[in-house]
């Protein structure tokens, strides 16, 4: 769905801002919001551009930078930390050759830190797009990344 169609779904009320931003970002192949998106939404809701920019940068789920096909969010919260999320984070950086907040050159993987994902029973955990991966070990991560690389 393109931006105009998404905007048409909504009433032009400020309370719809978060929902509109979610929808536009989800429809984007690179899972992000462009400057043009923010301006169009501001016009539609009769809000200032700076207000919309302020909202888009306040919430961690929105990105103003293009992201990869696979968005990897590694849980960093105390329960995952206790069970070794630091090792998991290091291993992911090593395997993908990028730091947190970055995207691989082939635009396939983006690595992000996340606050509690609410799946603490299987800590340490991460999410790749909508899928939860838990009870992570370095071996398991290698398997998962290899699987995604080979397109499984």
């Amino acid at each position, binding site marked *: 769905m393109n931006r105009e169609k998404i905007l048409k779904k909504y009433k032009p009320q*400020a*309370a719809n801002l978060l929902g509109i931003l979610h929808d536009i970002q989800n429809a984007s192949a690179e899972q992000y919001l462009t400057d043009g998106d923010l301006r169009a939404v501001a016009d539609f809701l009769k809000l200032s551009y700076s207000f919309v920019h302020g909202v888009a940068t306040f*919430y961690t789920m929105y990105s103003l930078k293009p992201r990869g096909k696979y968005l990897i969010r590694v849980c960093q919260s105390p329960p995952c930390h*206790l069970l070794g999320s630091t090792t998991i984070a290091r291993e992911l950086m090593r395997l993908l050759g990028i730091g947190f907040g970055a995207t691989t050159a082939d635009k396939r993987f983006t690595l992000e830190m996340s606050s509690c994902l*609410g799946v*603490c*029973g299987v800590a340490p955990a991460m999410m790749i797009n909508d899928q939860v991966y838990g009870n992570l070990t370095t071996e398991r991560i290698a398997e998962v990344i290899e699987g995604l690389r080979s397109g499984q």
Partner: protein
Amino acid sequence: MSIYRTHILLPVDEGTVQAGVFQIKRLLESELRSRKLEDEIKVLESASVGLIGKGVILSVYPDRIYYYQVTDRDITRIIEEHLLKGRVVESIPHEKLADLAAAKVQNRVGLTRDQLRIVLDKAWTMDPENIDEVLASGGYAALEKIFNEKISPEAVIAEIKKSGLRGRGGAGFPTGMKWEFTRKAAGSEKYIICNADEGEPGTFKDRLILEGDPHKLIEAMTIAAYAIGAAQGYVYIRGEYELSIVRMQKAIDQAKALGLLGKKVLETSFSFDLEIKKGAGAYICGEETALIESLEGKRGNPRVKPPYPVSHGLWQKPTAVNNVETLANIPAIISRGADWFRKIGTDKCPGTKVFTILGHVEYPGLIEVEMGTPLREIIFSFGGGMKGGKKFKAALLGGAAGVFLSDSLLDVKMDFENLKESKAVLGSGAVLVMNEDTSIVDMLFSIVKFFAHESCGQCAPCRIGTQQILQIVYRIRQGSGKAGDLETLLNLAEVLAQSSLCPLGQSLIMPIKSALGNFREEFTVNLSNLKQINLVK
């Protein structure tokens, strides 16, 4: 609708998914088809029961037997022995399911022993996406009771007040009073909001309620709206909880189609509409005024209180904001009465509490037990004790904005009052267990990092203070702390507690003070030797 002689329920959650529940489901279904049993036996996905670390769980109804740690190899035996011959397969770990929803669970059986479920009574025994099953198991009965018996809004509030129900989001404020304030506040336009922005690290109780019994929440919010005089409600669900959002939306649509929600609820003159608002990743939005700001489409910056939302909430109108678990208690209280509810739990904290047990325990997961259950029982009975036989060192109660307890407090009763007396908090009900190998300094570092990241940046004490505290804890962790660091740490935390605008900045003192108070030697060891001499008095 076709009738099946047996139902097989497979709880789906992150634990069972990791253990391969979908593969088991596919195998089971294809085996049943090849034996032409698919018209007799129905395989259903149910919500999580909260038993994580027990592999794939498979329960057989109406036999009330559940198998756990089920593997591919067990499928044929379960079909041939149990489903065809009616004999329980003794060689697969299994237990008989207790009636979790019974007023008091008498039978002490296995994994579900001694749990008492009010909030999560139906999750796991039905398909949460099927409203017929929900209605058949007593869903919406409390709402019907109110209209059939013509119970007035004031009488509903009086019953909730009498029940002694207190908010389960962490603060423990009496729910009936909150509703009364909202009802009595000036203005005709009022709102009810369900706070489902569950972000406290180590907490996933609200998610399991949303996924396991979304209709209960709709029923509760409709009752709340009737009581306070609201025509519109919002469920604010954190953006990361995709399945919760999908299930809740489905439930809302089903309820509307049956006239249980929307215009003229149950053909009365009462109308109530409910809408989901999706969060976008901000811990601070769990704070009620930040949540309201976010719902209005703004940055989630908390407001200065007072005025409180009960008089000046959403769009400055009177608003009651209730946590998911709090609301999930409402239908049972209305159906069974405040007197029944008061018999459960403690005098000052009636009812049950959902706890999430995590960390170095044998069985991490979720339980619902009476308020006042001792911490020792939660960790050692329900959590299965320490993993790998290690020694207990500490428990962090209530999430990141929580308190570190040492073994001297293992027998503390887990309710608002008793924990307060022991200078601890119940918070969201998260119990993070740490063994003897854990560095408290490292854990505190993780907590402070979390706070520094989640500070919304609106007020200076919190924005700057969390960064300063992070630097100090970081250098202590690296072994390069300076003399006076611990004093500075406590001073800064005190400044934040006194001057921050909202509970985020105000509560960082809890983990810091309890870590330094109960495990001070770990912090002094981490300072360099020379400076350690200065510190040890």
